[in-house]
């Protein structure tokens, strides 16, 4: 236990330092582009995890918040004729728009549980995609073009990278704080047994909705950044069903409901996918590979890398520790195990 307490912040600082140094060391344009996309997905997966990972409600509609944030920034930048760096200041407004949309989204979808919840999030997602295609102010299928940034090509990606990194670090930190807090415990109680949690006095709807709004706020901000980075807001890229799937995959891959899991998942999956897309020069093949990877994760490490590795390590440790006393105590005369097993399991997650 104590070892983990020391190592967790050290690992976090090392990872953050490495991430901050990345564009300084590697200046290849393709690599930094992949870097920006990866950081965007680290933040998005961590934000998704704050709601879906902790509460157990799998949302396949987070692209709604992502797209709302992106379109808010796009439309306001167009309306106020903003250019250059000033567009970045609209990102908090994108976040607020995402959070506002999350309230009716949650009030409708959180009426249901399990499958039905997932399906309703998908349905709401398609409503938003259709609205983006059909409303006049979104520019329809041709979308909205972002103002051109006349930055130096060599360092063009860096501001995007660092903004995404700051948001990602903030989100992971927030996730860590929430996980340990009373609010986080309430969320996990809902995940484990919602009716019992309500019986124990958890205001379930309020707790779930708050988590969704927090998650949507960050996702909306990331959406705004993504729009400016790719330089346009078109419905099929901004309201993309693959976005929903990708963030869920990253979180599942790393470990649903853990703080580091979604980060690890995003750091592995997004660069791999981008690299393959570029190398193979075939969007369809990379789509097939994403699906195949997803299936492999579900079938081979269904609980994610971090929980599975943690389990292996603790099993190995207990085997190491159990070797000597196991020979001493004959079977059948073992002392009654202490009822602390539940707590140990909780810490291992």
């Amino acid at each position, binding site marked *: 236990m104590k070892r983990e307490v020391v190592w967790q912040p050290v690992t976090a600082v090392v990872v953050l330092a490495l991430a901050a140094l990345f564009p300084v060391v590697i200046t290849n344009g393709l690599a930094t582009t992949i870097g920006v996309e990866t950081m965007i997905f680290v933040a998005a997966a961590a934000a998704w995890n704050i709601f879906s990972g902790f509460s157990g409600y799998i949302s396949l509609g987070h692209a709604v918040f992502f797209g709302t944030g992106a379109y808010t920034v796009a439309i306001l930048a167009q309306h106020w004729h903003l250019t250059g760096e000033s567009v970045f200041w609209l990102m908090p407004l994108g976040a607020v728009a995402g959070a506002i949309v999350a309230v009716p989204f949650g009030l409708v979808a959180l009426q249901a549980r*399990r*499958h*039905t919840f997932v*399906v309703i999030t998908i349905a709401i997602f*398609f409503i938003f995609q259709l609205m983006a295609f059909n409303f006049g102010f979104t520019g329809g299928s041709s979308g909205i073009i972002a103002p051109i940034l006349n930055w130096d090509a060599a360092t063009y990606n860096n501001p995007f990278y660092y903004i995404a990194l700051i948001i990602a670090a903030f989100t992971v930190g927030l996730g860590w704080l929430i996980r340990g807090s009373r609010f986080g415990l309430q969320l996990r109680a809902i995940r484990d047994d919602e009716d019992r949690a309500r019986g124990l006095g958890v205001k379930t709807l309020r707790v779930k909705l708050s988590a969704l709004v927090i998650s949507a706020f960050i996702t909306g901000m990331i959406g705004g950044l993504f729009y400016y980075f790719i330089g346009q807001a078109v419905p099929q890229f901004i309201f993309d069903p693959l976005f929903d799937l990708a963030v869920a995959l990253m979180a599942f891959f790393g470990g*649903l409901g853990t703080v580091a899991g979604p980060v690890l998942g995003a750091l592995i999956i997004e660069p791999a996918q981008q690299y393959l897309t570029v190398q193979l020069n075939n969007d369809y093949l990379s789509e097939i590979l*994403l699906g195949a990877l997803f*299936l492999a994760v579900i079938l081979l490490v*269904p609980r994610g890398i971090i929980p599975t590795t943690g389990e292996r390590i603790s099993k190995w440790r207990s085997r190491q520790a159990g070797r000597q006393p196991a020979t001493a105590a004959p079977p059948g005369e073992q002392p009654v195990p202490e009822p602390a097993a539940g707590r140990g399991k909780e810490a291992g997650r």
Partner: protein
Amino acid sequence: MGRQIYAAIADGILEGGVYALMAVGLTLIFGVLDIINIAQGILVVTGAYLSYVLSVHLHIDLFLGLLVTVPAMFILGLGIYWAFIRPLRGRERTSMSLLACYAVAIIIEGVLYWIFGANEETLHASYITDSFRVFGFYLSDIYVYGFILAVALVIGLYLLLYRTKFGRSVRATMQDQTAARLIGIQVNKVAGLTFAIGVAVTAAGGMMFGATSGGFTPNSGYDLISRLLAIIILGGLGSIGGALVASVFMITLESLVDIWSPNWAIVVFYLALVIVLTVRPTGMFGRQPVRAQ
């Protein structure tokens, strides 16, 4: 105006029959396996492409081709079940199976794009363009044939479920899996066959979809699955009768709104879903409340 409305209702009922066929497969799979097969939409599109290949390259009639495509889709369904659904276990099985089906859908979509490209394809046959007059309306032949086919297949499914020993095992598994296992039903086998049957009907649904939609691409799967999900939730998950009524109701509603605004017709679809679920969370015919599942 009145004529237009009657025509829209007639179209809606006929097309609703086709959607009912696809939705029954989906709701049957849910009832027995407790999973939602998100891949159903892309499987319908796969069925359409299979019919396309048979009719364009081998010049086999669309309806005759079903004799090949239905068994092919049945085998595909069996394969998906054994490879990806059956191994899933544990507490997260529900969400895992949903994601597994989504992953399968993505793979199939990628494969279809790779083989057929992103161009719109349509199915061609003399009866797709022909129409005949009933009570002063022109009804397209294909809609009528498709409706008859859908009704025949739904009756076939009904007989299979309510008049055979296999059907009794399926219904027993739907009611209580543990009890079914205890009285000697091979639940895994029943589940696999049900999944395969649910997928097999997409061959017929896909042929009809390809013939009536006026163009399909591998991307059409998303649109289809979201409609089908809305239909089976409205009808009450796992309720076959509910799926039939909800299909006809929703497609008719869509074709009515289509008179005023084609772009927004599909939104009404989802809005109806949201409103119905807010007022009556069980869906129209669900016994078990959606909320408590």
